[in-house]
């Protein structure tokens, strides 16, 4: 465990600007967004989390995967698109979002298939997270067993201790940075403060919102009467999936002129009807009922079965931004999950 005076930290961060691009939470009209930071003072009072998650630092909303030239009378030339990544520091990531990066790693950096573009961006990015002291009303990380002080997924986690930050590393890269000045080993006083904070968060995280029933047989879960009901108010707008830090569904399409083409990947959503529609017109998930069931079960049943972790980090963006107040916490409670109302 290490610590650093806040002033010293921001001076150090500024010093990184020469070699790296830095994205930090910046207040725009509607809220905070990860935007380029060039060293001026960061206004973080009132910062709970960014409007959009961090996934597009690794998995951008739109990117070319390959490109090709189709010149008349010549064979088609096909080239891989270079992701052209620059070394990046992501500063101010919340622990829920940091955890989401580890979940995306399981998808894009699997044992058999690896996504080159994702991997290169991931390896080029250094994540400095900020532990949460005051969760928003829509936050529910603790109901999923995630601590607002968790360092998982961060290279460095900073915990606000007044005039200084306590600093913890979760990677070798992070540990190497912390071992050098201006970081210094944490004083016993700082460690005590951190332990006190941890005790409070542990108390709050008594309940689990992940329903027991979802670890049972799919044949039973699939036909619960709840699915016939909860989809009715959903507009299938997909905003929950676009704002979700762990949603990673994408489309691949070709953008072409007469002589050139790019095969691009863009975010897609399981809430859209044509997402699963075959060329023949047949659709395995024809209505909102199947689609919302897919979204809930993918996060809380299929992903845990395939990747050993729930694909929800409790950031609450989907709850905050749903135009019809669809609340995933309510669905989980109706399925039997428990929420500690103290933490809301």
């Amino acid at each position: 465990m290490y610590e650093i005076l806040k002033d010293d930290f921001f001076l150090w961060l500024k010093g990184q600007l020469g070699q790296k691009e830095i994205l930090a939470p910046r207040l725009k009209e509607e809220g905070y967004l990860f935007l380029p930071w060039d060293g001026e003072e960061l206004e973080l009072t009132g910062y709970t989390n960014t409007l959009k998650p961090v996934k597009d630092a690794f998995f951008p909303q739109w990117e070319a995967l390959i490109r090709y030239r189709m010149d008349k009378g010549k064979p088609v030339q096909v080239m891989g698109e270079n992701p052209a990544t620059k070394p990046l520091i992501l500063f101010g990531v919340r622990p829920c979002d940091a955890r989401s990066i580890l979940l995306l790693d399981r998808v894009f950096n699997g044992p058999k298939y690896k996504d080159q573009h994702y991997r290169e961006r991931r390896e080029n990015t250094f994540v400095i997270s900020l532990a949460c002291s005051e969760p928003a009303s829509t936050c529910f990380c603790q109901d999923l067993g995630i601590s607002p002080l968790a360092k998982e997924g961060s290279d460095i986690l900073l915990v606000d201790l007044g005039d200084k930050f306590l600093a913890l590393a979760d990677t070798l890269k992070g540990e190497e940075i912390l071992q050098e000045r201006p970081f210094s080993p944490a004083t016993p006083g700082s460690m005590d403060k951190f332990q006190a904070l941890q005790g409070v968060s542990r108390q709050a995280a008594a309940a689990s919102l992940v329903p027991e029933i979802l670890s049972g047989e799919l044949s039973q879960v699939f036909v619960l009467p709840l699915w016939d009901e909860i989809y009715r108010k959903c507009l299938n707008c997909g905003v929950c999936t676009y704002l979700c830090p762990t949603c990673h569904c994408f489309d691949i399409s070709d953008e072409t002129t007469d002589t050139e083409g790019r095969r691009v990947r863009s975010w897609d959503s399981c809430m859209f009807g044509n997402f699963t529609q075959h060329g023949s017109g047949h659709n395995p998930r024809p209505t909102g009922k199947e689609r919302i069931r897919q979204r809930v079960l993918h996060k809380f049943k299929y992903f845990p079965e395939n990747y050993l972790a729930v694909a929800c980090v409790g950031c609450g963006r989907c709850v905050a931004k749903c135009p019809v107040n669809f609340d995933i916490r309510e669905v989980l409670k109706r399925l039997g999950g428990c929420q500690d109302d103290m933490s809301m």
Partner: protein
Amino acid sequence: MTCQCEIKNPYLPYQMEILEVVEENPEKDLKTFTLGFLNEADHGTFLYTPGQFAEISVFGTGEAPFGIASSPTEKGIVRFSVKKVGRVTTALHILEKGDLVGLRGPLGNSWPLEKFAGKNLVLVGGGFAFTTLRSLVCYILDEENRKNYGNLTVVYGARNPGQLLYKEELQDWSARPDIDIHLTIDRPVEGWWGKVGFVPAVTEQVVTSSENAVAVVCGPPVMIKFTLPVLKKIGFTSENIFTSLEMKMKCGIGMCGRCNIGNKFVCKDGPVFSMAELEKLPAEY
């Protein structure tokens, strides 16, 4: 993490030349494309097993997945039979011999040849879903492989003779002693020398035993629906009946999120499943 230099772009296709286009039906909306590798060296890296699929790129239009209809024993080429249905298949149907396409794969699992070894095989196919069954038949009939399998019985049906894929080859197979093939059409047609009747009924007639046997079923959903009870009646268990599923796919490598049934991705965990596996999944396909 391993060295990043090992990571290749999984979306970069092989460059392929169309060597031959065969119109398979009178409507001309079903064609078989034989592709050759433009770069000789690529041939050695595209190693597949019957039952796998690949994504064909039509440059300027896009990519779509197709079951591989050729067998790995047919060296130097990869073959696909494609029905003209949507955007990519329509664009592909315009292409001719000498045109270039992209090929990404091989993808997915395959017919479980290790489970088929030493067994009698019953293959039941319908319509243009016969593609990866052709791959399997050609593989088994290969001189090197034939001795590893028992009797090979094939039931293949289509609405009318014109809709049967690989007509010349079917004739050749009919003349061979090492394959027992039964072709059938829905209604009688003048000059037709095969059987008349639906696939499930013909299967019931010609397949008499499930002893030491496995069955493979590929065809339209309605055919599969009525063939399964027939196979069960003959004595095949769900563990010994295999099929291949089709889904809308994009990435083909288990990332893009659209082809799952429960926790299984058809692109990565399939397309081949035993009926026992499918019975555990919801019928969301």
